[in-house]
């Protein structure tokens, strides 16, 4: 793991204007450095602005104060080097699995690849999420878990520097979620992507992450604590059930979320 700073969130505020000259300060003075090849989770109660941070990194929303730098370049707008896996997968329903990924690949890498290379490239990422059999199906014909795998394949296919995942498995049942988490860990071992995951699931955060970023409650949410998860990879969920480090991390997050920053109005 390289230790140089890859993504730097530097004293960032996010303020949303409300009607009548009022405003809502969602984030206050968020400061975070993320290293290359790292998997980082951002966890917090709903309304803590964790999705807002992701949108700022993606460039889908504008920063009110401070800066975000990716490899020392300012993030001002969205771009394919920061691919997003959306919570509701956001596949285009009129395109097949293959075409959804092909569209992204053609746009981002089309100028550097030949037609057959594009085909191979798309198929490589479809295979990576084990969806060869479903490549000609439309999103409406496949399950929620499969759709999210296509979403991940599409995001990875454009070879981003950072993979941003906004509660990617939140809408799935727990068995499917476990399956996708395993997929994600396996793929990240292969590709070495830097991954930022927004989640509200404690086990998911510990299982997947090198570090867990814990957010205080909004308004004026900021980073409360950062937890290092010192578990070797590849991680096996069965073996972790009684692992001391796993249990320590889990406890630390639960302590943070339900004691220090408990929220009882949800």
């Amino acid at each position, binding site marked *: 793991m390289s230790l140089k700073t890859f993504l730097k969130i530097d004293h960032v505020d996010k303020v949303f204007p409300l009607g009548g000259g009022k405003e809502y300060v969602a984030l206050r003075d968020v400061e975070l450095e993320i290293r290359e090849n790292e998997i980082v989770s951002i966890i917090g109660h709903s309304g803590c602005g964790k999705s807002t941070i992701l949108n700022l990194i*993606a*460039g*889908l929303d504008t920063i009110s104060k401070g800066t975000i730098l990716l490899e020392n370049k300012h993030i001002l*707008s*969205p*771009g*394919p080097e*920061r*691919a*997003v896996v*959306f919570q*509701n997968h*956001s596949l*285009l*329903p*009129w395109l097949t699995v293959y075409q959804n990924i092909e*569209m*992204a690949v053609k*746009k*981002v890498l089309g100028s550097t690849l030949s037609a057959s290379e594009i085909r191979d490239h798309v198929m490589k990422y479809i295979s990576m999420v084990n969806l060869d059999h479903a490549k000609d199906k*439309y999103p*409406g*014909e496949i399950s929620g878990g499969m759709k999210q795998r296509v979403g991940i394949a599409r995001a990875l296919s*454009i070879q981003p520097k950072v993979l941003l995942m906004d509660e990617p498995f939140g809408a799935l049942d727990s068995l499917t979620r476990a399956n996708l988490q395993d997929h994600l860990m396996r793929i990240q071992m292969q590709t070495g992507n830097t991954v930022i995951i927004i989640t509200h699931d404690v086990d998911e955060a510990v299982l997947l992450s090198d570090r867990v970023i814990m957010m205080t409650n909004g308004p004026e949410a900021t980073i409360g604590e950062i937890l290092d998860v010192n578990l070797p990879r590849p991680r096996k969920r069965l073996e972790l059930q009684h692992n001391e480090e796993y249990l320590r991390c889990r406890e630390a997050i639960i302590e943070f979320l339900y004691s220090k920053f408990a929220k009882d109005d949800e």
Partner: protein
Amino acid sequence: MPFKAINILLLPLLLLGVMVGVWSYIALKIPGFPTPSEVWSELFVVLSDPLYNNGAGDQGIALQLGNSLARVFGGFAIAIAVGVPVGLLIGMSKSAYTAFNPYIQILKPVSPLAWLPLALFVFKEVNTTAIFVIFITSIWPIIINTALGVRSVSEDYLNVARVLQLTPFEKVFQIILPVAVPFIFTGMRLSLGIAWLVIVAAEMLTGGVGIGFWIWDEYNNLNYAHIIIGIILIGVIGYILDTVMGLIADFFDYRKRGRV
């Protein structure tokens, strides 16, 4: 209880019997009102020589209907050519929407026939006038539904476009149009239906040739059986237009390609 296939044939026929009975009663009470059997035999006369042409004002039924259809499709085509881009524009741009919306709201409820005298004064020719009236008829549902389609594009798809840095051109063709096309076709289907209603009235006013003119002309000729034939033919063609348009709309609707 399953609805038997035979009922689908039987029930309309039963109602036809009732309607013919009422019709016959009316024909009995109003002297000169064509009876069902008179209309039935006249229908064969009219349909036996649909393409005769004895000059302006006296042509076969197919030529009359053909002229009406040509005007409808002419005006309809121009309305699509103008309405879809305008609809895309006001769907995508808040400024364009703000600029156009009041005029669309004011002009939309105006009967297209109100434009007819003005069009006649400008074009001094009935064919162009009729096409213009159909254009005015067709354009509002097309603009409104196109804009509605554009605005129904989910924020998520637009975010995909932003992350991939699609150009505005790519965004329109790869994201917005696929979503908007079913809406556009709904607008076109509505437009075509209304256009087919309006052409009859427009041709009654403009004269010359066309199914509307033909019906009015037969009124002047005291040939009331032909008026009923005209009504039936207009209905049948309107039904066919709507059905074909519906099939085309379904073909272009990604949601109806045998899935979801």
